[in-house]
């Protein structure tokens, strides 16, 4: 489990600084973070519809789903490959309970009823999957969650009455109220930004609350946690429930974004993409998945043009992703954030020695 346990979050941060900001958010005190926040908020002034939705909203959605994996893996030491499946389940439930072109499947509930139902059911689904996964430990988690994800994918393919078989459910209705079409580019961008920010801060906050601290204790030494009075497995299952809710939020946004859901969205490859996003971004802190998602989306969108420009076959996007992922796994235990911090420490080394205790990244 070295990838998760080997690199503990905020290693470069002096503990005193961390404690001084106990009630605030330790990651949110750098100028870079504020700059990023401001840019995200005024994004619609900068970017047009294509960039706003295809790049930034998609990044925020994928990042949120990957955030749920980061929470489980980084704080709980449980690498779950079924987080996209939970998101996909929520997306299917929105389509099944809400309105869509598949009138024989969709129940036609209004969005404000269908969405909470979908969130609830997906959270239950993720919790049950988690309860199954915690029956074993460590590396087995990957296998079981992957098996759950794959089983769901094949099931959606086979099943027509509820999941619409391999064509899925199309033209899913999106919310419109207060005279606003919330799927229009700019409102939808703000919806995704709001949800992503909520999830990001929720994870950040919970990580220092008793629940999150205990989860990190379970990651480091489950036997000792039991000897301190904690029910370790209950804690793990609760972590799956929390993560499932975050993933479900991402799934609802995803189905609103594409207005359709089909087995292709919950394929094994897509499950693994979420792992790649989280690992490439960095699995030890909540900002990692969003960085990973941004890199992933940029590559996916522009790799074709880029590859063709270099005289290569444009269809080799997956190869590029695979090689990039391998490179990150080989050279950094904490994704690109880890690489970046190492580089900063390297370049700032002489300064830092002079002003020890102040120079954190």
């Amino acid at each position: 489990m070295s990838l998760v346990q080997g690199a503990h979050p905020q290693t470069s941060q002096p503990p005193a600084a961390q404690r001084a900001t106990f009630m605030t958010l330790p990651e949110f005190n750098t100028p870079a973070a504020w700059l990023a926040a401001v840019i995200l908020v005024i994004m619609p002034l900068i970017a047009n519809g294509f960039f706003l939705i295809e790049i930034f909203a998609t990044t925020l959605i994928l990042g949120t789903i990957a955030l749920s994996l980061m929470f489980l893996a980084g704080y709980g030491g449980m690498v779950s490959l079924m987080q996209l499946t939970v998101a996909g389940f929520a997306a299917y439930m929105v389509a099944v309970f809400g309105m869509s072109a598949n009138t024989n499947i969709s129940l036609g509930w209004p969005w404000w009823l269908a969405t909470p139902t979908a969130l609830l059911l997906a959270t239950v689904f993720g919790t049950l999957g988690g309860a199954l996964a915690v029956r074993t430990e460590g590396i087995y988690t990957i296998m079981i969650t992957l098996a759950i994800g794959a089983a769901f994918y094949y099931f959606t393919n086979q099943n027509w009455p509820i999941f619409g078989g391999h064509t899925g459910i199309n033209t899913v209705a999106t919310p419109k109220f207060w005279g606003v079409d919330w799927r229009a580019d700019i409102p939808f961008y703000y919806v995704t930004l709001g949800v992503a920010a909520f999830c990001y801060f929720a994870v950040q906050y919970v990580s220092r609350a008793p629940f999150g601290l205990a989860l990190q204790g379970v990651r480091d030494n489950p036997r000792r946690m039991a000897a301190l009075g904690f029910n370790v497995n209950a804690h793990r299952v609760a972590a799956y429930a929390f993560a499932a809710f975050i993933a479900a939020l991402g799934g609802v946004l995803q189905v609103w974004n594409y207005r359709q859901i089909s087995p292709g969205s919950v394929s094994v490859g897509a499950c693994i993409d979420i792992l790649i996003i989280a690992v490439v971004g960095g699995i030890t802190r909540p900002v990692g998945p969003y960085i990973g998602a941004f890199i992933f989306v940029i590559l996916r969108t522009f790799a074709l043009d880029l590859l063709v420009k270099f005289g290569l076959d444009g269809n080799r996007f997956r190869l590029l992703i695979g090689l990039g992922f391998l490179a990150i796994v080989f050279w950094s235990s904490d994704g690109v954030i880890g690489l970046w911090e190492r580089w900063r420490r390297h370049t700032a080394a002489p300064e830092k020695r002079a002003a020890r205790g102040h120079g954190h990244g």
Partner: protein
Amino acid sequence: MTRFIERHPAWALIALIAVALLLWLILAVWPPGLEEAIGRKRVFLNAVLNGITLGALYFLVASGFTLIFGLMRNVNLAHGSLYLFGGYVGYAISVWTGSWILGFIIAFVAVALVGIVLQIAVFRRMEGQDLRQTMVTIGLSIVFADLMLWAFGGDFYQIQTPSWLIGPVELPLVTAVKSSGEAVYLRYPLVRLVIFVAAIVIGIVMWLALNRTRVGMMVRAGVDDRDMLAATGVPIQLVFVAVFALGAGLAGIAGVVGGTFQSISPGEDTRFLLASLVVVIVGGMGSIPGAALGAVIIGLAEQLGSVYIPTYAIVVTFLIMVLVLALRPQGLLARR
């Protein structure tokens, strides 16, 4: 076995009744009421035989997977890619030389070589970091999948069954009795039976090699306690390479079998990876007999499921996995 019966008499009884019932369904002439209720016996027998032979194929894939995991604690998620690669190599060789057998041999050697390269170039460099190794195998599976898509395209390939194995044979299993009193016997493709027998032979040889030879003892000792094995001065790296080569080679052979039974195409890697995962979760990680038992159970569940409850077939497989995890999380035949 006797210990199991002593410890869990109720489960042993249930298993015994299930096996007896299955045998009766296979051997007896079905009474008319039963045929009305669940359909023709021929359909059922075909599903059972398909299930068992599919189980043989799953066993070939999963035994390599479980062997590699057992010794190196490496969940090789690129195992499906090795299977698919074996299938493509087998196809290319059988087309080029016209020899099915040669396809097997070359596929085994080629995929085993890939396994050796992987072991030496990748896994040896991150020993003991099982999660990181698993991540690497995920990356490799993506790269391999795309390279193979590049080289072979998205087409379906079927490996030609050699002429001496083409055609059905009559089995001494009665499917029905004609009104004249003449028994109708089941006809079943010879090639699938041959593969089934071959899988059994391979399984027994592996079991013997692990349990009766010195090298096998070393490997098993390593499964139980790697540090101890290292401490005895055994060239553990060599053992690792050999086991990885064998496990990969088996996946390669399985690819040729799969290409003959069914077909090979992009996406089959994931399918067989999933099959291996479920088989070893059910049978027990690191256990060869467990892989055999799990493979037959999953093969049967898949085939019977697709005949009798087509839109929920995968659910049966999945429920078996859930049941095993709930009752015996280490798998049916794991020692732990």
